[in-house]
C-alpha cells in the first residue's frame, strides 16, 4: 500500500477495502434475487432478510434516494468495540477484524448511519493512540516480526516505511567508520582450507 497518496481508480487497496462485506437487512421485497441468501430456497428476497453484501453494493442500496436495505455496522465498529478501542487501542489485534480497519471504517462512516460520526472519531482516536507503538516498533531493531501481524494494513505500511528508513540510516552510520567485517566467502574459504589440512 502506498501511503500519503489519494485513493484512485487503479488503487488495488481501495478496491479491496470497498469489497469488504457488511450485514444488510432488506426493507423492501426484491424479486428474483433470492440466490443472494444462500440459506433460503425462495426465488425472491423477503423483507427482513439479512445478507452480507460488499460495501460498494450496500452503499448504492441504502442511500436516501434508493432505500432498499438498512446496513448494520460490522462488530469492530460497534459500540462495545468502540469502547474497548477508546480504553486501550494498543492492545487490540486490528488485523483479526479485517485487513483495512481504517480505510473500510472511513467508507463506513460515509454511509448515512447514526453511528457515522462515532466511527469517524474512533478511527482518528485509535490511529493517534497506536502511532507511537508503530513508530517504536519500526525504530527498534529488536522488534519481533510477528508482532506486526496485529497491525492493520495502513499501520503495516507506515511500519514498513519507518523500518526501511531506520535500516538505511543504520547502514549509513555503520559504514566506513566502524570495524570492517570479513566477507562470509573469505571465512568459509579459510574454514575449508583448515578442513583440508585436518584431512591430511
Amino acid at each position, binding site marked *: 500500500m502506498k501511503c500519503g497518496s489519494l485513493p484512485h481508480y487503479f488503487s488495488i487497496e481501495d478496491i479491496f477495502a470497498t469489497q469488504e462485506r457488511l450485514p444488510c437487512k432488506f426493507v423492501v421485497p426484491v424479486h428474483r434475487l433470492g440466490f443472494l441468501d444462500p440459506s433460503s430456497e425462495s426465488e425472491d428476497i423477503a423483507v427482513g432478510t439479512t445478507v452480507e453484501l460488499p460495501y460498494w453494493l450496500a452503499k448504492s442500496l441504502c442511500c436516501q434516494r434508493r432505500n432498499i436495505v438498512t446496513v448494520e455496522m460490522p462488530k469492530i465498529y460497534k459500540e462495545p468495540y468502540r469502547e474497548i478501542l477508546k480504553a486501550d487501542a494498543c492492545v487490540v489485534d486490528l488485523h483479526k477484524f479485517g485487513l483495512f480497519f481504517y480505510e473500510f471504517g472511513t467508507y463506513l462512516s460515509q454511509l448515512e448511519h447514526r453511528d457515522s460520526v462515532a466511527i469517524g472519531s474512533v478511527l482518528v482516536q485509535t490511529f493517534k493512540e497506536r502511532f507511537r507503538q508503530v513508530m517504536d516498533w519500526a525504530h527498534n531493531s529488536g522488534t519481533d516480526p510477528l508482532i506486526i501481524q496485529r497491525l492493520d494494513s495502513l499501520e503495516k505500511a507506515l511500519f514498513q516505511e519507518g523500518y526501511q*528508513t531506520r535500516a538505511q540510516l543504520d547502514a549509513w552510520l555503520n559504514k566506513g567508520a566502524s570495524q570492517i567485517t570479513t566477507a562470509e566467502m573469505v571465512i568459509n574459504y579459510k574454514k575449508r582450507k583448515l578442513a583440508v589440512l585436518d584431512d591430511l
Partner: protein
Amino acid sequence: MNPEEVEFIAENKNVSIVPNFNFDRIYLISGDVGPFRAGLPVQVPIWMATNLRQRQKCRIMAPDWMDTEKLEQVKEEESQSRFFTKMPSEHYMVEAHLLLGVAAEDIPHADEIRTILKDIWDMRMSKLRSSVDAFIKTGGSYAKLDHLTTMEINSIRPLLPHALDELYKLQKVVRIFMSFLKNITLQNEQYQRKVF
C-alpha cells in the same frame, strides 16, 4: 531521500585542508578552488577533500566546532533543554562521519569526538520520537522544526509526513460529516420556524 543523498548534499560544504603539493587554481563549475601551496591551508568542498585525503595528497583540518570542549558544551545544552538546540553545523553528523571516516588521524581526539557526537545524536533522536508522537496526538498538521538538521529530518521521512497525511484523511471525513449534520439541523430549524 536516502542517507547517501543527504551526504551528497553535505559534501558541497567547504573544509580546510593542508595540501602536500603545489598546483594552480582549478576552475570547477561549482566555483574556483586553490591555488594549492604545500603546507598552506586552503578551502575545498568536502567531496574533494576526502578524495585528496584518500590519495594522501593532503591533511584535513578539523572544523572549529569539531573539538571535545566545544562539543561537550553542545551536549550539555542539548541535555538541559526540552527543545532542540542549534547545532554548530547544519550537517554536523555527516561532516563528522565523512571527515572522521577518512582522516581520523588528522583530527585530535577523534574517538572522543565520535562518542560525544553519538551521545548528542541519540539524545536528539529520542527527543525527535517524543515530539513526533506528541505532534500526532494533537492532531495538528503544522509544526515549526527549528534547529533540526537535514539528516534528522530525513530520519522521520516518509513516516511523519505520511502519518499526518493519513490522519488528515481520517479527520476530514469526520469534519465533512459534522458540517453535513449541522446543515441538516439548520434546515430543520428553518423549516420549523416556517411552520410556527
